[in-house]
């Protein structure tokens, strides 16, 4: 049985932990609103961009001469996986969920005897992945010092991906990130960005436009494709930022509640043992008086 003093100390420490988690929850909630807003506002851009690319893909008649970024190298041997995670912890299963999904994919890729390269964005993901797959990691990004994610950061990652592609380092590129659905649900996702995925094309969009191009189709594609890569990375970063805050908010809310429960339990214990010691003293006094 812990002494009264010990219990008192524990109650105090749990209470101060609760204060911290509560504050973190509030901060996350405030940041979430902003992150969610920018994620939602950013969605149309990336979606429309993807749509244009998909429409373009359909109108290509001669896959042999089409830009490699669009149709791929035609091979399926080397993979580049870009894992996007947060730079900070204490956000529930956010980072581990992405890493888990990524690792399952790594295993599959390696199991098929294919070559694997990894780029990590965010230090937490790097920490988790380097333990098992450290030798495959070719580059890591971290935007810890940036307060808000802007297009420039995404562009940095995008350019790196493209330069690796031009050096023939990979045939397919997949990005892993958390899709923000709502505050409590974030879904870890993988998206293939090179070559552009065409299978999730919307049904209603199936008319075959014959577009008029100005200037030439090749020139447009040359300009558009690298931009699209950065845009997709940017979208993933925004979704991630919102998911991170949402996930942290839920995690901290739970922690605050748990701390509350713990304080209640400890207070009962504390009162009980205080009462016990009072009763004990009374008994001692009474039996002392009786024996006189």
């Amino acid at each position: 049985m812990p002494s009264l003093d010990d219990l008192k100390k524990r109650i105090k420490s749990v209470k101060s932990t609760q204060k911290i988690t509560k504050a973190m929850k509030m901060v996350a909630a405030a940041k979430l609103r902003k992150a969610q807003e920018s994620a939602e506002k950013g969605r149309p851009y990336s979606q429309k961009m993807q749509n244009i690319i998909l429409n373009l893909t359909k109108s290509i008649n001669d896959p042999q001469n089409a830009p490699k970024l669009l149709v791929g190298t035609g091979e399926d041997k080397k993979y580049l996986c870009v894992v996007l995670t947060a730079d900070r912890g204490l956000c529930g299963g956010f980072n581990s969920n992405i890493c888990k999904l990524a690792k399952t994919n790594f295993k599959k890729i390696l199991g098929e005897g294919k070559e694997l390269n990894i780029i990590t964005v965010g230090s937490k993901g790097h920490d988790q992945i380097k333990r098992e797959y450290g030798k495959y990691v070719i580059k890591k990004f971290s935007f810890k010092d940036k307060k808000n994610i802007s297009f420039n950061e995404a562009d940095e990652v995008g350019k790196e991906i493209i330069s690796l592609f031009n050096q023939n380092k990979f045939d397919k590129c997949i990005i892993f990130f958390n899709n923000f659905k709502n505050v409590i649900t974030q879904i870890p996702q993988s998206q293939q960005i090179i070559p552009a995925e065409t299978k999730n094309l919307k049904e209603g969009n199936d008319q075959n436009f014959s577009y008029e191009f100005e200037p030439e189709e090749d020139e447009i594609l040359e300009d558009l494709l690298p931009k699209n890569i950065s845009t997709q990375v940017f979208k993933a970063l925004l979704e991630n930022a919102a998911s991170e805050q949402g996930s942290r908010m839920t995690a901290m809310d739970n922690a605050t509640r748990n701390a509350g429960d713990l304080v209640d339990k400890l207070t009962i214990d504390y009162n009980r043992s205080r009462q016990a010691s009072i009763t004990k003293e009374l008994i001692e006094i009474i039996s002392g008086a009786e024996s006189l």
Partner: protein
Amino acid sequence: MSDKFTVEIISPDQTVLKQETKEVIIPSFEGQMGILNNHIPLITFLRPGIITIKAEGEKKYYVEEGTVEFSNNNLLILTSTARDLANFDKSSINELLQKAEANLNTESTDKDRYIASYKIETLKEISQ
């Protein structure tokens, strides 16, 4: 059938504008281009210039680059640099202009120089 179509200007961080319009003039890469409804499906990209949207009133946006798609009477302009001319103040115009002029001589390819020269021209036009 109405003679209107929808125009959307979308930047990576927000939807700048979405409305019905009769005519839009865009600075496409190879020259000014006017778009009316039932235009043929089109994909092109922009050089620095001014987008003019003619509805009840006229709206003007300054852009530096962008991608344009027209299909199903829906004009989509994807750009990261759209600025509404109505609240585009003098000092930021001059700032951009100075930067552009400084860059003009360092651009290496013809294409970059072409873009830079249009940028300067447009900015000068606005500032007057």
